[in-house]
């Protein structure tokens, strides 16, 4: 059989999303291209990582008005296309076998975007007990553990807890969202975070309010600094700047 046919149909490894055969990596060239297609059109905001169209500077309008409490946030890509479908299958359908490949994507972001300094501890954004009971797993914790395994970092799912459910955030301004979430998170084990640099992990960052509230609780407990990594983030367009 000619070699080029075998190249087209290698046996064994398959794409973590579409199941097409592949030689190396996690995703086939088609899915990989779609995952990172945003890089041709957007740049991340230097602070919050939201995606900005070229010519709109390096800092988004929200961060120009008020800087977030975390040092920086970065994401694998925009919340659309394959990434959105992956998150949907992982989070809402409960396809937990996706945790490992998604954790590897996050690890790639940490290595590429957040520099050589290793965080002391990886902390997932927690769920309330009721939400955890309903979903049966915390998607951020599964991602954090996969990321920790990939980079050899310590992970704590207990350091931070969500102590109250909050009202829906739809229609609130950024400041109002931050206020809505104030006090929703509490550090359970201050000794784990005091004086250390931390990496906060979540699946999606929409306005950054949840990440900011978690960061606020961690800084109040004495953390030296917090960086955030998520699978997906928003695109900074005029429509979603104004509340």
């Amino acid at each position, binding site marked *: 059989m000619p070699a080029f*046919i075998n190249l087209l*149909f290698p046996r064994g490894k398959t794409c973590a999303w579409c199941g097409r055969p592949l030689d190396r990596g996690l995703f086939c060239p088609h899915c990989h291209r779609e995952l990172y297609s945003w890089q041709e059109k957007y740049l991340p905001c230097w602070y919050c990582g939201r995606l900005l169209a070229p010519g709109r500077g390096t800092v988004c309008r929200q961060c120009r008005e008020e800087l977030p409490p975390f040092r920086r946030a970065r994401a694998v890509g925009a919340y659309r296309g394959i990434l959105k479908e992956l998150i949907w299958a992982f989070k*809402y*359908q*409960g*396809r937990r*076998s996706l945790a490992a490949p998604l954790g590897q994507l996050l690890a790639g972001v940490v290595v590429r975007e957040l520099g050589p300094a290793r965080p002391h501890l990886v902390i997932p954004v927690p769920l309330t007990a*009721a939400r955890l009971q*309903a*979903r049966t797993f915390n998607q951020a914790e599964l991602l954090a553990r996969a990321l920790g395994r990939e980079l050899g970092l310590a992970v704590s799912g207990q350091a931070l807890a969500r102590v109250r459910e909050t009202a829906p955030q739809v229609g609130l301004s950024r400041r109002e969202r931050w206020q809505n979430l104030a006090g929703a998170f509490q550090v359970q084990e201050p000794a784990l975070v005091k004086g250390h640099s931390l990496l906060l992990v979540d699946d999606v960052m929409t306005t950054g309010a949840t990440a900011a509230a978690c960061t606020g609780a961690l800084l109040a407990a004495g953390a030296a600094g917090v960086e955030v990594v998520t699978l997906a983030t928003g695109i900074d367009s005029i429509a979603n700047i104004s509340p």
Partner: protein
Amino acid sequence: MNKGSSYRQPVFCWQGPLYLVEGEGGWRVGLSHNPGLDQTFWLQRGYRQFEVLTPPLPLGAAVFLHDLVAGYLATGGQRVTRGWIMEMLARGRARMGLEPWTRVEKVAAQPLPPPPAGELALVRNTLAGRVLWREELARALAERRLGVNTPLEDLCHWLYLEGEIKLLPGVSYDPDGRPRCRRCGQSTGLLKVNCAACSREDCLLCEGCLAMGQSRRCRPLYARPWPFAAASPARPAAVVRPRFRFDLTPAQADAYREVEGFASQDKEKECLLWAACGAGKTEVAYGAIAAALARGRKVLYACPRKEVIRELHPRLQAVWPGLQIRALYGGSQGKYGEADLILATTHQALRFYRRFDLVILDEVDAFPLAGDPMLYYAVERARREQGQTLWLTATPPPEMVARVRKGKLAVIYLPARYHGHPLPEPEFVREPFLGPPGTGSLPRSMVNCIKTTLGTGLQLLLFVPAVSLVEGVAAWLLGSWPGQAPGGAWVRGCHAAHPRREEIIAAFRRGEFPVLVTTTVMERGVTIPRLNVLVLYAEEGRVFTASTLVQIAGRAGRSAAYPTGRVWFIGRHLSPAIAEAARQIREFNRLARRRGYLTR
């Protein structure tokens, strides 16, 4: 799954101990999420001693241990001792790989009042012929505008104690301790997960059927077979007779009579309707539906593809205007109502349990049913044990063909199309030096096929074995033959993930360009009146199986406007699949000619 609703609702997690009750009849072992209910149940039946044997266990583990001890109690006779029962539990626990439990809280629960009989009846009726999660049962009751005050899990447990329904764990263990999903029947695709519902780190989750919700070791499925006594009375002939808008061809009429005969008597449990592509097998299957309905039987028409079910629903409603027909597919409204005839995707069939007397399974070889044991399991379980299955296909899988050849599976042939012309037989063209697209000039055979097609004003579907070849072959043709059609490309490509797939296919159907390069995504459901078909790299057996090639060849010659469409297979060598496909098509033509179905 609607992310806005169901995922936020708590999912019932079954945890409970095993217990032992002793009465005049000896010992009985039981399991319960609410032992107070069981105390009441057994007290009513004269059992006095009630002893808790284990700590609360997830349902899958509890059922495994229960079955082990119950089997021992059934066969042990007088030799049964309490010590042996504990020994059996310890062995069973080790077989499942569970940690030993150290302390068992032996405080007996207080007896609870039995659930109201009226509410039990509602659940009993709603669950008839279905296998549902507690949450699905709640939705089924809500859909029927029924309400109960007692927790559903308690009502179901009481019915389980009465032997009316089955209590199945989402994931349970085979007798050898190997886990298996009881919803989809698979033992692969199971993950050991940390589950916040049962607070265990070794819960088992099935990823094989996640699209239908989480199946876990700690989640109960409630199943009740359709009660035989509740079989509907025979329906009047005027209601069940299909109203055809055209006459059946002689081939269809013969096959119709045969399938009618199959469903009118219970001689054979299964039968294959093996039809030529485009011969009208669905209309023939109406015979089986009508015969079963006339006997008051319950009928399921299942197909792996949602589009087929959606398209079939209005067709069947027009054929049987007096019957209530319900179509179930992902996104359909009202999943739990009753109907005379149910059309469902094979995924939706996972919610039925021993309900149907006749299951008609269409396109058994089509994605995703082909090679997916889960979907066979679904339709098998949906059928009553004494029920019948009618398989409809143009390309049965090899194991089914083997059973036909050995005489182990009854078969009804429908070998001719309505226009009376034979099926176009494929012409194999060997091109030993055929290289990747773009290397050198187009092979002469391909040039001839294209010239023949374009010269007579026809269209050509050109199949390639991989998505990555679609654009390459299209560019190869355009590069070799740039000026075929003024005002746009004369060749276009499309595949399953193509962003403009529907648009390109629609333009091809309208005849806006003559050549479409595509993958096996176009092997079914495509009828273009004046069409030739070419398969390039046809020897690639991993993609072009005999079934696929028969389906592809079946795209040509479907219409009376051009019944003699041509089919070319171009490859480096003759593969077994090409030979088998050509043989099957020739065999059908011979059979059709022998039976006098061919008029030309």
